[in-house]
């Protein structure tokens, strides 16, 4: 997918680094707040993301240190989009293998399809060791955007 399209789905207002959160709920709240600020979702979506973990457990922790926060498509979703939150210190979701979590990707889609290509691109990026490390090391939202651009253009962040 063209990098401009990907970056449009992860707007700068939806990226925050150095976020401090005492626990996973506060981390998901921060993740949801930036999605609200970026016009991706309305506030009820934040509670829906938290409820997903309360109901189904910490399965959203998809890899060591990384959570993919989301809820179902709902009227609270305005457009397909993502947020990226890097925590200054990690939080525990209760996942047996992948805790603690420092990187949270927030996902929202108004339907089951609109986000698939971008999600695939993000997953590819997270599979790359150099890009994953660069995300964890990001100190500004611009750093995160650079990682996205670098992966889209070169397939690597080395």
């Amino acid at each position, binding site marked *: 997918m063209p990098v401009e399209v990907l970056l449009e789905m992860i707007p700068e207002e939806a990226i925050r680094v150095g976020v401090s959160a005492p626990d996973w709920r506060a981390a998901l709240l921060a993740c949801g707040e930036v999605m609200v600020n970026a016009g991706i979702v309305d506030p009820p979506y934040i509670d829906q993301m938290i409820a*997903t973990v309360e*109901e*189904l*457990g*910490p*399965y*959203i922790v*998809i*890899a*060591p240190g*990384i959570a*993919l926060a*989301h*809820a*179902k*498509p709902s009227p609270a979703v305005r457009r397909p989009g993502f947020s990226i939150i890097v925590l200054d210190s990690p939080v525990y979701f209760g996942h*047996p*293998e*992948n805790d603690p979590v420092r990187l949270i990707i927030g*996902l929202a*889609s108004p339907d*089951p399809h609109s*986000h*698939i290509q971008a*999600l*695939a691109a993000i*997953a590819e990026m*997270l*599979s790359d060791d150099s890009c*994953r490390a660069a995300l964890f090391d990001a100190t500004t939202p611009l750093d995160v955007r650079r990682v996205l651009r670098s992966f889209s253009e070169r397939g690597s962040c080395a």
Partner: protein
Amino acid sequence: MKILAVCGMGLGSGLLLRMQVEKALQRLGMHADVTVADIGVARAMAQTADLIVTTRELAEHLQGVKPKVITISNFVDLEEMVRKLKEALQET
């Protein structure tokens, strides 16, 4: 061969699982239909599946289903998927 990728909502991790299963199958030179199911419909859909791929937490909701269930902990680690899929397919 039908593989069911089961996640909570059918929106996030299930799609990642399907992508990884498809990449792993390609690596193994095998073909299968890979479908995403959320946990609410997974038990019914399991009736016609040969293999289920999911997470450890969600596997607990699927106890007693007919097909073999494999659990993945790192969704961006293709090696884990290839290894577990290969083992499971050798047994089925």
